[in-house]
């Protein structure tokens, strides 16, 4: 254990804790932009600077480990002034359009600019910049990604490196990295090609600004009138916790919280694969297939398609198979009847059951119980049995 003082407060923390973590564990807040608690420290934004007695220049608290007897000051007019300069610099190279930005209201940069009372832009604005004392050239990029998931507005990128690190350290993909030097530095895929990766969207989740957002949630709503519903991802057996962002009874976005079993990480399906919820092809009631006895009858059934299929949109199945809507009771009776007949005629091993990862554990348990106890067969398998 290490003893140190932060802002005069005596505290004790574990060895090799960073000064930032030590402060935060003790409810002392230090502003950060590039730091992410689950990624290795970066030390790029310079907002988390603190003064340490005996060290002549400010140090970044996110990268500095605590040491015995250390005396740390996290705020002083000097430090706040430096932080303000850093923020002014970032904003001097930032589009001035929070009002139409997907991230507004949830943007760390916006929040810090607000708290530090960054001067509002003073005209004349040079080349679309913000004006102010550090007015100057602003990076201008054209968006060009063709992918359906991730919007990359790199003009808003503050080069905090979080996306690069999450892609490398958490995903092991390494689809993006820093390129170029100096003011022109830019995060992009190799050779500035379009993003072509697994599209897990982890980078979107960690981006502190509006540089990375989901294409699917563009213009669907930001913070107002959003109901957040915590649930479990229905896609696979991992069972990641997800949060549905619901606006006017429509799921407009999926996210995941840090303090969940999956630590907030998701895959492409969990994060972006939610539009089946309101999809027209989604089955909402049981259907029973009408198997035609011969071609003539098939034609007849087909001509009366509109009557037999009650889904508002016609189903895109092969025309030789036609379904009719049924109640749950009718459908279940029908299945029970058929299973019984097969079992009597061919024995229980003529039946096999295949269960789904999209069911809960309980449902899967009941299904195998049903197959073994009621049907009497061990022919039971599961899509996630790798």
């Amino acid at each position: 254990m290490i003893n140190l003082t932060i802002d005069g407060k005596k505290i004790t923390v574990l060895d090799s804790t960073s000064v930032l973590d030590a402060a935060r564990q003790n409810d002392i807040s230090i502003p950060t932009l590039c730091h992410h608690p689950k990624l290795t420290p970066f030390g790029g934004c310079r907002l988390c600077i603190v003064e340490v007695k005996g060290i002549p220049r400010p140090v970044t608290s996110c990268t500095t480990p605590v040491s015995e007897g250390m005396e740390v000051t996290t705020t002083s007019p000097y430090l706040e002034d430096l932080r303000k300069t850093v923020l002014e610099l970032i904003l001097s190279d930032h589009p001035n359009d929070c009002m139409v930005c997907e991230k507004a209201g949830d943007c760390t940069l916006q929040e810090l600019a607000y708290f530090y009372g960054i001067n509002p832009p003073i005209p004349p604005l040079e080349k679309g910049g913000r004006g102010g004392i550090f007015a100057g050239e602003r990076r201008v990029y054209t968006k060009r990604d063709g992918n359906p998931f991730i919007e990359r507005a790199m003009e808003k990128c503050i080069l905090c490196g979080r996306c690069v690190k999450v892609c490398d350290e958490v995903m092991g993909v390494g689809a993006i990295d820093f390129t170029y030097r100096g003011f022109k530095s830019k995060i992009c895929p190799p050779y500035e090609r379009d993003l072509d990766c697994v599209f897990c969207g982890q980078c979107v989740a960690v981006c502190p600004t509006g540089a990375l957002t989901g294409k699917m949630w563009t213009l669907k709503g930001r913070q107002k009138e959003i109901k957040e519903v915590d649930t479990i991802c229905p896609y696979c057996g991992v069972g990641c916790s997800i949060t549905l962002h619901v606006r006017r009874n429509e799921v407009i976005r999926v996210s995941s919280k840090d303090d969940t079993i999956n630590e907030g990480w998701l895959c492409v399906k969990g994060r972006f694969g939610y539009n089946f919820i309101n999809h027209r092809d989604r089955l909402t009631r049981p259907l029973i297939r009408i198997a035609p006895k011969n071609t003539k009858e098939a034609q007849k059934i087909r001509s009366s398609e509109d009557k037999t299929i009650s889904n508002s949109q016609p189903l895109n199945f092969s025309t030789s198979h036609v379904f009719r809507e049924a109640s749950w009771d009718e459908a279940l009776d029908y299945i029970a009847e058929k299973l019984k007949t097969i079992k009597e005629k061919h024995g229980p091993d003529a039946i096999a059951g295949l269960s789904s990862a999209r069911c809960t554990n309980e449902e899967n348990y009941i299904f195998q119980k049903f197959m073994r106890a009621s049907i009497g067969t061990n022919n039971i398998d599961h899509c996630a049995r790798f």
Partner: protein
Amino acid sequence: MGPGGIASSGADVISTFESELKKVKVDALIEEGCSLHKVGCFGLCSKDVLVDLEINGNKTTYQYVKPNMVQRIVQEHIINNKPILEWTTDEDYQNFYKKQVKVVLSDCGKVDYDSIDSYISISGYRATEKVLKTMSPEEVIEDIKKSGLRGRGGAGFPTGIKWEACRKVESQQKYIICNADEGDPGAFMDRAVIEGNPHAVIEGMIIGAYAIGADKGYVYIRAEYPLAVERLTLAINQARKKGFLGKNISDTGFSFDIKIKLGAGAFVCGEETALIVSIEGQRGMPRAKPPFPVYKGLWGKPTIINNVETLANIPYIIRNGAQWYSSYGTEKSKGTKVFALTGKIKNTGLIEVPMGITLREIIYDIGGGIEGGKAFKAVQTGGPSGGCIPVDMLDLNVDYESLAKAGSIVGSGGMIVLDEDDCMVNVAKYFLQFTQSESCGKCVPCRIGTKRLLEILDRITKGLGKVDDIEILEKLSSDVKATSLCGLGQTAPNPVISTLKYFRDEYETHIKDKKCPAKVCKDLLTYFIMEATCTGCVACMRACPAGAITGEKKKPHVINQEICIKCGACFDVCKFKAVEKE
């Protein structure tokens, strides 16, 4: 021969000597002690190609030697023993060397860089044998500590203390890295050392490795130095063959080998943490320290990074003793330092001087003063991270502490002399342009802050400066220095700060009067023709690419200011000095 010598056709001079000597059948004498050596850079670049002729112990040095001069030298001097006095070096040459003390460079220009035997013949590898056979690692470290040697890569950290820290770290695997990235514009001493005496660097690395307990070494060298890479590669192979590198060196049980790693020409990769990740195959971006490389360096293992010049000093210190080395220099800055003397000075080139020598001695005694009788204005030391020192501080001692106090640094040893024709705002802009474009982009103050500084300087030189620009420059400079992550950003504003400190009036003239006192900033100049002196020769009219000059023959001409693009062609072409700029 360094690249300067080669560019001045040094190779041709050598081959001409070879063929001329053959013609007169001198090759028969080779066994009796006459030989032709190609050697590394001597230092005095402005007089390339230099040829030393030593006959019975009498040395004559010829300057500006061209292949077509060789025949006469061979005929008159070698055969008839009559030196050609009008071609030998002049007083400048003698003065250039008088106040210099050569340690690192002592064998550059003497030893044949292509031959390990040549190096061994001048006591080469004797330090290695002494260390491996008779000294414990702790004794080596003690020696280096006593010598007072400080890192020559820029920061000036005491080498012995760094080694000691690394020695004390327990680890199965340690590394030593030689930093030969030399990215400072204007610095070329590391290159000269490697090209002139590569074995001294290898020796330094072996001794360092032994001291800290490393068995692997890397030389991180920029790919833009093909000649240095070639000579170093050859030297490493020779050392391996002779058993100075590899397993069980000289039967002492100590094993060590060196790999060369090429850098891709990023200035920031000279920074030690960036250099390490670059060797590891990642983008060279510095990281915060601690942990220092001494504890967590290459591949996470304890690592020592030393500059080429630092390492090349080691064998000399071991051979001649710590006391000998520390007899040069000042209280806190011991030994000698190599500087690259360039700019508006008569004798440009590499010089090695004892620490503590004054700027005046360097510029006037060694450098021969300002070229063309112009007035000295300032000297820029330490490259893009350094600052400008004005004329009234010429008696400043050149050592780590004094230069830092004056707002500059020793740095890697660049020294650019500026005269009355240099605009200080422009000088600051030049260096900032470099650092700004070489920023790795990781941290905000360096990436955006230096860009803003540059933009402000740019508008000042264009006559668009605003009254509060000086204030913004000062504030932003000090904030960038205070908040940047690595040495690049922390020092990038130095040229601005030091020029603002000593030449504030130049900034003010640019901003308030829209004039450039040194007449450098194009946008602030007006060219006009003096009616009284103009003879109407039409030379300027013909020379002007913009067609801005009108006038009749034999009558004074006029420049139309609206068309003039300020290229200065008229100024250069007028024989009567009738064109003036203001």
